[in-house]
């Protein structure tokens, strides 16, 4: 393994590694903790849980969020649930099985020691959240209820109606609020991180823009935790919130943090199809719907034609003329195959001309059988709020007619490279949640994002940050007056002035939309060499055009167009790196599907001989990024071709 990419996986068997780490890590005594400052950027599940837990330990924490309140982070939108290996259902679950499912679901492109730790911690997360008053669903005996989710044959998903992410976030937000009240955590809202400040080779602070006043601020600390989420909005249309962006991570990358597996993007199979050019975002319908909903398209092209013309209703098509293609292709998992498999199967049917809306880009998700089997009351109890949401957006009633769904960009498995301690290649910069390249390999299983965010924040960073800070106790509070802070602030101001000075003719959103089209077309669900090379050229041209022709109003204080312009400028660089990474990875794995690499029946074809590694990129000013490889060493699990048939 390369010098810079030491994964620092502890000794011992896979089941002993985390315990061994905790037994031997260095600690900081309580009096010294009070003298050490930590900056946490982001207040989603990872950021809020980290800030709260670090505050409880006695560190001085400063926490930053882009929204008006920490409670609004996009973790809130996760609907379906959170996995844990409790085996409450007596259906054969275990830490080992959750570990195996997660590695297999990620198509063997994750670091196994990290994944095992995640599975190990999963049970404590549920206990923690119950203690915080998270109102998980329960059965009549008062015990916690579970549902099943894609990519697993056991029921290990805990949920709170269709609002699991919101309830878990509110739990973490409560814990954070408790620490703010105690004074261990100081909260900064409506702030956006615009740069990382490095002093003597260590991350020592950030430059942030106050989104209300426009002020550029300096904040210093002994260590920085980045928990700023994923970069799915590079595609313009995604299920991410409007403010979700990749800039904080990207700016750390440009300051020396390696960016890992940027091309690993998750396209979620059950989203409401695109319905117009004006659309600002896509809405996800929880994957839990696949538990009881059956996915199909008509078998006959004539039926498709008549449906598009409105001459035929889906309910009029007899069962024999329907193609339940997931049940047909994957009898073992049926409608519960992992997300990447379900998405590609929908694309395959639509590309073959069987899409059921006017654009030909939709398939049915049908609850008629479930309603017959369980009755409308039970279906309502399980999915009522999702049905309501669908009806509100599409103006169709899913109790009467099947939903129409299509895949959409949802999650990014790639992110800043981190070692076992969640530390990036910049000492003192830790990365948690979706922002790191994480435990999900090339594809994340449903209900695992919440698990990972909270594992990182509640149960990993409080240990590993202490280990890092143990030799920092003689370091006084870091000054914001140093030349490094001065230079970082100046660079940010210069960049803002340059953007404001362009005074072009095209809006930021227009550029963002154009970037999104290129990304979706060439770096989306199916990628091939020519397309990727074309994308790199198109993005490069678009970036030049952006810096010559973007139009941003020159207003003081609140300037939303400027905020967006800074993010889109970064997305254009990141998008190009995604295309380069996809081009380099000449295999299909998880969410990354190279058309040139598939089996005879259209399944993803991995190449373990050549690509069993994490691709970690080093930024180079003015020249192409340098690829570093962390070879994945599977000791505890056998590399197998995924099979959901």
């Amino acid at each position, binding site marked *: 393994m390369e010098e810079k990419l030491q994964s620092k996986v502890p000794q011992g068997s896979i089941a002993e590694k985390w315990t061994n780490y905790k037994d031997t890590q260095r600690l900081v005594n309580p009096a010294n903790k009070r003298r050490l400052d930590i900056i946490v950027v982001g207040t989603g599940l990872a950021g809020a*849980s980290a800030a*709260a*837990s670090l505050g409880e330990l006695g560190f001085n924490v400063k926490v930053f969020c882009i*929204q*008006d*309140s920490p*409670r*609004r982070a996009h973790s*809130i*939108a996760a609907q379906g649930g959170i996995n844990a290996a409790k085996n409450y259902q007596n259906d054969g679950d275990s830490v080992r099985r959750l570990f195996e499912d997660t590695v297999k679901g990620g198509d063997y492109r994750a670091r196994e020691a990290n994944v095992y730790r995640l599975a190990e911690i999963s049970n*404590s997360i549920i*206990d*923690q959240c*119950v*203690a*915080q*008053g998270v*109102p*998980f*669903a*329960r059965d009549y005996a*008062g*015990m916690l209820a579970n549902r099943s989710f894609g990519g697993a044959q056991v029921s290990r998903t805990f949920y*709170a109606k269709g609002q699991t992410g*919101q*309830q878990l976030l*509110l739990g973490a*937000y*409560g*814990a954070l*609020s*408790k620490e*703010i*009240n105690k004074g261990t955590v100081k909260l900064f*809202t409506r702030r956006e991180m615009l740069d990382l400040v490095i002093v003597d080779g260590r991350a020592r602070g950030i430059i942030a823009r106050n989104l*209300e006043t426009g002020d550029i601020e300096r904040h210093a600390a002994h260590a920085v935790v980045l928990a700023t989420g994923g970069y799915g909005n590079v595609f313009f249309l995604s299920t991410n*919130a*409007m403010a979700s962006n990749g800039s904080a991570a990207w700016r750390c990358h440009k300051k020396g943090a390696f960016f890992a597996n940027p091309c690993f993007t998750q396209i979620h199979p059950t989203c409401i199809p695109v319905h*117009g050019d*004006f*659309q*600002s*975002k896509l*809405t*996800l319908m929880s994957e839990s719907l696949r538990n009881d909903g059956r996915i199909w398209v008509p078998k006959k092209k004539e039926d498709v034609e008549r449906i598009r013309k409105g001459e035929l209703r889906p309910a009029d098509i007899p069962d024999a003329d329907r193609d339940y293609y997931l049940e047909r292709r994957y009898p073992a998992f049926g409608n519960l195959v992992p997300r990447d498999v379900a998405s590609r199967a929908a694309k395959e049917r639509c590309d073959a001309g069987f899409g059921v809306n006017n654009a030909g880009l939709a398939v049915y998700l049908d609850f008629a059988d479930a309603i017959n089997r369980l009755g409308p009351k039970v279906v309502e109890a399980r999915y009522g709020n999702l049905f*309501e*949401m669908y009806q*509100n*957006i599409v*103006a169709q009633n899913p109790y009467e007619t099947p939903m129409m769904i299509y895949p959409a960009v949802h999650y990014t498995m790639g992110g800043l490279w981190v070692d076992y301690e969640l530390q990036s290649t910049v000492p003192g910069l830790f990365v948690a949640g979706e922002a790191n390249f994480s435990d999900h390999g090339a594809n994340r299983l449903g209900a695992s994002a919440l698990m990972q965010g909270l594992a990182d924040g*509640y149960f990993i960073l409080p240990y590993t940050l202490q280990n890092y800070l143990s030799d920092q106790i003689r370091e006084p509070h870091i000054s914001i007056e140093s030349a490094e802070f001065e230079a970082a602030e100046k660079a940010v101001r210069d960049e803002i002035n340059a953007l404001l000075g362009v005074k072009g003719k095209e*809006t930021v959103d*227009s550029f963002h939309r154009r970037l999104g089209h290129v990304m979706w077309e060439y770096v989306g669900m199916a990628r091939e060499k020519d397309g990727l090379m074309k994308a790199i050229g198109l993005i490069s041209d678009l970036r030049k055009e952006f810096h010559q022709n973007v*139009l941003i*109003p020159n*207003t003081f*204080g*609140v300037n*939303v*167009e400027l905020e967006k312009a800074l993010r889109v400028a970064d997305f254009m660089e990141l998008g190009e790196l995604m295309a380069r990474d996809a081009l380099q990875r000449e295999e299909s794995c998880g969410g990354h599907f190279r058309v040139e690499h598939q089996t005879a029946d259209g399944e993803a074809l991995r190449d373990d001989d050549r690509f069993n590694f994490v691709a970690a990129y080093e930024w180079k000013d003015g020249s192409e990024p340098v690829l570093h490889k962390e070879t994945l060493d599977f000791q505890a699990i056998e590399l197998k071709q995924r099979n959901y048939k």
Partner: protein
Amino acid sequence: MEFTLKIWRQANRSAKGAFVDYKIADIEPDMSFLEMLDVLNERIVLEGGDPVFFDHDCREGICGACSLFINGRPHGKGEGTTTCQLYMRNFKDGATITVEPFRAMAFPVIKDLTVDRSAFDQIIQAGGYVSVHTGGIPDGNAIPIPKEDADMAMDAASCIGCGACVAACKNASAMLFVAAKVSQLALLPQGKVENERRARAMVAKMDELGFGNCTNTYACQAVCPKHVSAAHIARLNRTFIRSGFNKPKE
């Protein structure tokens, strides 16, 4: 579709605001209200103006960031929806639509249609949580919780903190917001321990921040995008009154 928009414009916290009229055409019925505002803002930017500032984020009706007082009602006339889930097909073609910020003393206007709702965070910080720290927790199934209680706690917990209840209330009271949190935690054994202390602290903070008192008009319940019931206010009141008798000597 086309509309006349009367939008509240206000440059900053201290500036005096006023309504400004905008005509907008070529709006599709399937656009959301916020997408309609996106179209307006894109036009304003191209004309060299300053776009309208409004809070929004998830656009799925769950983050609670969007607000807006539309034709005299928080989140517009949709039943159980937030502004981002309000679609233009719900308006009459050619209509005049009035758009204001949420109005309450405790929610000062920052700019245009955006208000400062950090008072809600301060109320939660005063005690809207279980004071448990990370780690050392018994198994999640150690204490059975009756399904009815868990479901009722979930209903209370579905509050998204948008502030529509305050904007709709003639007293600008935050009682529904406070009651939702107090009630959620009161219904669960984990939250019961601190129940009375929590209710006292949150109500005191609410009063301190300038929210009004509750006079039981239930306007809050009528506009709540998550159907949080005013019945929770009764539970808060019972807890609060009981806490007065049980108040420990500080």
